[in-house]
């Protein structure tokens, strides 16, 4: 992990991102207050299965792979996320533990938002909590649809 950037630069990065579109300015400031620029080298693990997850990431550049370790096959990539994607949903709901390994495939630059303080703020201000949950629910919905299409194995032709 590397250098922290100034809060207003983080605020700009968050405000620009489609994920936070329509979010009240004071909430963007609030999130920026919990945010930091975090980079990962190629091959570095963002977190491992079972790790406690206390942040989510907006990927600004690069690509990460969601992996599962299968006994006789080694690490299998289930999905990759790239520029503009939001990584990390486990921070929302207890027990806040990662379900997969997440590994940076390339040099990856992110804006990380620390969830520890964010969770408290959401408890105190449910309206902030609702705004975030709406957005994460939408991401979950899209991921689920994409995952279902992957499961359909559409390219596999019967004989």
């Amino acid at each position, binding site marked *: 992990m590397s250098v922290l950037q100034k809060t207003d630069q983080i605020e700009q990065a968050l405000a620009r991102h489609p994920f936070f579109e329509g979010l009240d300015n004071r909430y963007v400031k609030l999130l920026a207050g919990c945010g930091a620029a975090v980079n990962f080298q190629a091959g570095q693990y963002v977190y491992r299965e079972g790790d406690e997850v206390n942040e989510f990431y907006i990927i600004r550049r690069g*690509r990460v*792979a969601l992996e599962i370790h299968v006994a006789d*096959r*080694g*690490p*299998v*990539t*289930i*999905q*990759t996320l*790239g*520029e*503009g994607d939001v990584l990390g949903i486990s921070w929302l709901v207890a027990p806040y533990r990662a379900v997969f390994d997440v590994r940076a*495939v390339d040099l990856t630059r992110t804006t990380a938002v620390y969830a520890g303080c964010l969770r408290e703020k959401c408890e105190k201000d449910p309206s902030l909590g609702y705004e975030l949950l709406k957005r994460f629910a939408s991401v979950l919905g899209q991921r689920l649809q*994409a*995952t279902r*299409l*992957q499961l*359909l*194995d*559409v*390219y*596999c*032709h*019967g*004989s």
Partner: protein
Amino acid sequence: MQPVPYRVRRVRCETRDTFTLELKSFRGQGMVFHPGQFNMLYAFGAGEVPISVSGDPSRPESLVHTVRAVGAVTRALCAAKRGEVIGVRGPFGNPWPMAEAEGSDVVIVAGGLGLAPLRSAVYHILSNRGKYGNVVLIYGARTPEDLVFRPELERWRGRFDLEVDIIVDHASAGWFGNVGVVTTLIPRASFDPQETVALVCGPEIMMRFSVAELAKRGVPAEGVYISMERNMKCGIGLCGHCQFGPVFVCTDGPVFRYADVERLLKVREV
């Protein structure tokens, strides 16, 4: 109505069940075709199947088809060796709108073997590069081992005037590319939705969802073209098998403007 004999000049193995055949006619006159058209390929004594032309339209002396072995006839075609003879009837069908797309950005979304009829379109664009705006090729396959035309893909990725995005449904160790469903590459691709013609080909579900993603980015249904597949026995609008609602996929298609078939695609078992 009879197949014309063509000699197999070269066979390239694309994947474990997919082969590209390069054919030459006996009289050497070649076959002029448009990207998106197909031929009925005949394996002597086994039967005929409709296969899209996957070659370069600016080189008609070499007729190229990419075939996947899924049944008796395609297995026979895939087993053909250099020097063997295959029957060809065609070219048939309504091609990709290459002329209409001039002046626009072009987004090509290919799923699985759907890249075969689209490869001809890519060749055409590259031969006439100045006539088109941004050109993006988005290609999804099941696994890295199922990617076809790898030499061409690698060459195209090296170009500065073509964006190539590839994704696979499942990956194994050693794959450093994207993993996921092909539709996820559409939101990020570089094209102007207001000035774009989209060419989409692959399994029907994949095409439907790709068109939905394109629509989310603002590409209207009038600007999206798909290539459909149906059972064909004649390829020339006489046997009735390929009907999709009121249209014959062999003569009115296989390329359709999405706006024209959108309603029918939403009805089950049409």
